[in-house]
């Protein structure tokens, strides 16, 4: 392999220089570039291509006229959505489910990883880890079928409640319990798998720090507080920012499979509303407009979270 020369000449003309360098880099690392090609193609086809279709949110879309041919209606769909009777309820529900989700399910994998880290027996640790991953690999449809059966009036959870002296009740018919069921089942399903990234971060911490701390007489809690937590803080912060960026865009499949009209009060969120409007009533433009609104909010939240984090903790996405 020849050495790469980056002579001073290359910098004289910046734009020509850039292409020259790019070509050189391409030649030198052609295999690497080729390997990233599928990823780039994926993003272009599935993530940038569809942006073109967003315009139907500002149009009165009719399949026969196509995306380009449909007439513009400006912000009509947005105004309709803002004026809709359910607008505030949708915002509230979407925000609350995600907010509670963030509070309760975000720390769980971290705690879990910390606890696993303290285990002495490697064999036991591996077994626990593997078992905790399992629910992640079950399809959401099956999970929701299981949840529905568990919380039915003659289901497992109700058996437990009766055992503890409570009364049988179909829990999915209680609007007050929907978020609890949704979030706790989410923790059960996702905790193990999401802890992987923290376990990986834990393994990066320099073992000498622990040895020094032990010599200084630090106990387990002190070591966890002063070494482990600061050690994985960058990972935690980055994931937190990313999670905040998704605060309003939760996957709607699970809600769709678990909710019913009686729990709309707490369970109906923007994406399920879009689903009913777009796919059951075939109002594509309207649901696109609501989707755009949702993305704009998410984007704003992401930027805010990132800036706050950069100011407060020095860690940020960019």
């Amino acid at each position, binding site marked *: 392999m020849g050495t790469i020369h980056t002579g001073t000449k290359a910098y004289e003309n910046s734009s020509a220089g850039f292409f020259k360098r790019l070509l050189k880099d391409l030649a030198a690392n052609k295999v690497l570039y080729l390997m990233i090609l599928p990823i780039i193609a994926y993003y272009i086809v599935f993530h940038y291509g569809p942006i073109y279709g967003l315009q139907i949110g500002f149009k009165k879309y009719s399949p026969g006229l196509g995306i380009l041919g449909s007439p513009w209606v400006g912000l009509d769909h947005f105004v309709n959505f803002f004026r809709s009777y359910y607008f505030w309820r949708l915002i509230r529900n979407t925000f609350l489910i995600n907010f509670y989700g963030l509070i309760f399910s975000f720390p769980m994998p971290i705690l879990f990883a910390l606890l696993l880290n303290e285990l002495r027996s490697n064999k036991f640790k591996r077994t626990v880890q593997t078992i905790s991953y399992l629910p992640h690999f079950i399809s959401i449809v099956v999970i929701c079928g299981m949840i529905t059966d568990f919380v039915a009036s003659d289901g497992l959870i109700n058996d437990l409640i009766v055992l503890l002296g409570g009364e049988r009740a179909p829990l999915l018919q209680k609007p007050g319990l929907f978020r609890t069921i949704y979030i706790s089942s989410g923790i059960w399903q996702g905790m193990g798998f999401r802890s992987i990234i923290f376990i990986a971060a834990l393994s990066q911490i320099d073992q000498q720090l622990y040895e020094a701390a032990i010599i200084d007489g630090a106990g387990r809690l002190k070591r966890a507080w002063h070494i482990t937590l600061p050690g994985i803080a960058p990972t935690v912060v980055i994931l937190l920012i990313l999670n905040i960026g998704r605060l309003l865009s939760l996957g709607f499949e699970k809600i769709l499979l678990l909710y019913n009209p009686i729990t709309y009060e707490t369970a109906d969120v923007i994406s399920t509303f879009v689903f009913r409007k777009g796919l059951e009533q075939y*109002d594509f433009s309207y649901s696109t407009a609501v989707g755009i609104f949702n993305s704009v909010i998410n984007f704003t939240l992401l930027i805010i979270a990132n800036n706050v984090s950069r100011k407060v903790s020095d860690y940020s996405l960019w």
Partner: protein
Amino acid sequence: MEKKFFKLFSLILAAFLTVSLFAGCAKENGDNDEPNKGQDMDTGKGDDAITEAQEEEFSYPMDTNVKVTWWHGLNPNVSKSFESANETEFAKELEKKTGIDIEFMHPTSDEQFGLMVATGELPDIVEYSWDKFYSGGTPKAIEDKVIIPLNGLMEEGYMPNYVKWLSENPMLDKMIKTNEGLYGGLAPIEDGKSILGPLVRKDWLDDLGLDRPETSDEWYEMLVAFRDKKGAEAPMTKRSSRFATFFHSIYGVGTSFFVEDGKVHYGPYDSRYKDVMGLVNHWYKEGLLDKDIVTMNKNLEYAKMTNGTSGALVGYTGHISLLEDIARETDSNYTLTATKWPVLKKGDTPKFGHKSWAFSLNNRVASITAACKHPEIAARLLDYIYGEEGQMLANFGIEGISYNVEAGGKIVPTEIMHNDPDERSFFQMKGIYTRSYATGPYVRHPQMTTFDLTLPSQWEAVELWSDSNELDHKFPSIRTDVADAEEMGNIMAQIKTYNDEMYLKFLLGEESLDKFDKYMDQLKKMGIERAIEIYQKAYDRYLSD
């Protein structure tokens, strides 16, 4: 050496991944090319053939070499046996009888339709529900030049059978054509009888010495007896969506829009709706209705009906044979019987009962697209099915193979239909020989019910359930003015969500019925009166035409 191999390997992998990424798109493009292929073959002597045929007395089979492409969703009853409807005996017989070469095409997903329309590469015939799926409905699809109105072809005499049928059924004719008088396609015509209704355990009734209940009081008495004497924890079960008609029929209020003395009403916005909800809530509190109705699913429902937890449900004719088959493995006495829809006073005829108009706006009509080069031939093909011979083929298949006509005119399925050597079900067998495995562009034969159903108790069920005055009160399958359609959609989207929610709240007692006036006020605020006004306008025009 090893390094080189690794390099080569990653190159191939990368190339493979990139190609596979585009493979999905490429495949769809391929599918969409097909309509064109079909049309390219159309060019040629088609025109001559049709003019010749017009000059002399017309008769099938036609002498033409035009190929007609026909797009419709493939029903699971067919896809179980074949990849495409082309391979069915029904299609082969239809081609033979009409002399027209048909190429059936099937979408792999619902989105494919939007794509197909957007690219303008349309097949000749499309089965689609414009009024349900296409924003703006049939009039807009015609205006957007996706499909052609059939009026010209009908006037020129290419569709004598369909024209004849419409003239014999003027009320349905008014529903099928748009407000501008255009026909968007050939409509599926059903018989409108109710195949859904109340079912109760006959063996329990006999044990308890009770007759089949007719009034709400008799129902109450029976369910209490089921609960107290038969130990049924949930005497009546079913999925909540099917509950509605049962209670509404008692008080004579529709579940949605209905007509009374020429005036349009909205069921849930009616003072009688309070009585309906009062009764439902009462029964629920007494433990007569299943506690799990909201989250009920099919398997739970079957289990409860067959293990003695429940003794009554609102179900389909198919439930009779299905549940009896399951239950009789453990209880040979298990028998289900249908009852009429309940009424308030003994001897009354139910006002509602899940009967439907023979034509529904939700059904898929067979339309001829603007891309069709030989609409006359497509019209002749579709019209054949509305003739006497075509109707028999679409309903029952081929005489001597899939059906026989007994002395006295009774049409019965042949032996193979119920006992297929390959163990396919009756409806899968219908998928091979007929179009009547699902609704489609044909007129349902009056004998279809007895042809389909094996048990006399099922025939009785259809008669009992259909014994109601529903069609006097049911809002017809008509379209609102195009200008009103969007406003109507916006109003009703909110009201539907609100109603679904409040219906269950009243039912479960989460919301007291004292708040009923507030509920009515809320409906009013959401614009229900404007919606009624729009429907009243459409109804008045329907009557005046």
